[in-house]
């Protein structure tokens, strides 16, 4: 299809890149990405994939904007406090790039939502802030065979990984790292442990980069690897993930088993 002059101009700087070109740009235009969570990780992910021209972007979040969000959730401002995050995020992103189709879901990502919406997208991005939703998303992506771009932070450190992507004959997921969810009181949340906005910004941008790599095929995707970044030392540690013998044992293997799992209870 002949692309408009405006389309070419808007994405010119990335189309110009060696190994990218109009071919990669059109792959982005034809892609659909669902970002779960419009918080510290979700905001930069959304801004960068929308700016880059991913054709259709879904945003799911049930929260309202709070004053304590503003140090890191850079899509939101003072006037947005108390408003629905998914709706406001979609409005701001539409101003950024009107060529992108935006779908706002102001609700929780529960089993029914995952089973209904995940199949509509090519890639799912985990930008949540709790283990209950992280395990739910992981298990849904395994069952539905969807690539999952994972990101999480803890104080000054962050993790990034890409799951359910076949690399050298193996397709691994979060349960290969941690077969059973930790209890909520075992691990600090951002509310308890604190977080400097720059850190989820960096981790979110790494996730956005993995999304773009997955779609366009450029570079080497972080599949079967866990990257850990330390903001205080600027050091990156990468470890290779291998299949865990307890991974499949703990995974719901059918949609019925998935639906009957109580993820909130598993993680509390």
């Amino acid at each position, binding site marked *: 299809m002949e692309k408009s002059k405006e389309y070419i101009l808007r994405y010119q700087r990335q189309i110009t890149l060696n190994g990218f070109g109009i071919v990669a740009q059109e792959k982005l235009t034809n892609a659909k990405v669902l970002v779960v*969570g419009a*918080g510290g990780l979700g905001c930069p992910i959304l801004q960068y994939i929308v700016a880059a021209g991913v054709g259709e972007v879904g945003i799911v979040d049930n929260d309202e904007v709070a004053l304590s969000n503003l140090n890191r959730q850079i899509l939101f401002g003072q006037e947005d406090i108390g408003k629905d995050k998914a709706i406001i995020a979609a409005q701001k992103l539409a101003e950024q790039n009107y060529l992108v189709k935006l779908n706002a879901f102001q609700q929780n990502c529960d089993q029914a939502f995952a089973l209904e919406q995940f199949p509509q997208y090519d890639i799912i991005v985990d930008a949540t802030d709790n*283990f209950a939703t992280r395990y739910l998303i992981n298990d849904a992506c395994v069952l539905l065979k969807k690539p999952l771009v994972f990101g999480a932070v*803890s104080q000054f450190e962050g993790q990034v990984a890409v799951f359910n992507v076949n690399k050298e004959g193996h397709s691994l997921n979060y349960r290969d790292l941690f077969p059973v969810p930790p209890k909520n009181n075992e691990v*600090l*949340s951002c509310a308890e442990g604190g977080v400097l906005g720059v850190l*989820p910004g960096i981790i979110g941008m790494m996730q956005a980069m993995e999304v773009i790599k997955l779609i366009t095929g450029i570079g080497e995707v972080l599949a079967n690897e866990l990257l850990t970044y330390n903001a205080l030392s600027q050091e990156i540690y990468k470890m*290779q993930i291998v299949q865990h013998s307890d991974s499949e044992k703990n995974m719901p293997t059918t949609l019925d088993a998935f639906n009957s799992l109580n993820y909130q209870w598993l993680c509390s």
Partner: protein
Amino acid sequence: MTIEVQFFGQLVDKTGKSSIQLEYISSMVQLKEKLFTLFPLLKESKFVIAINNKMAVENANIPEHAKIALMPPFSGG
């Protein structure tokens, strides 16, 4: 001969250190026992162990001069 053990995330708070050097230990089981003796708070923590940047199985052998990492799950976002 020594091995280096590096701690990530909240494990640094629990051990008070980001890394330590240990006398060489050849088995993972013994390594865990040693770490639990040195840092009892690790017993209640969830983590995965990597040997030389690769996730290790329960009964793995530890090569000489290995770099070990203890990686906990992160939940924030």
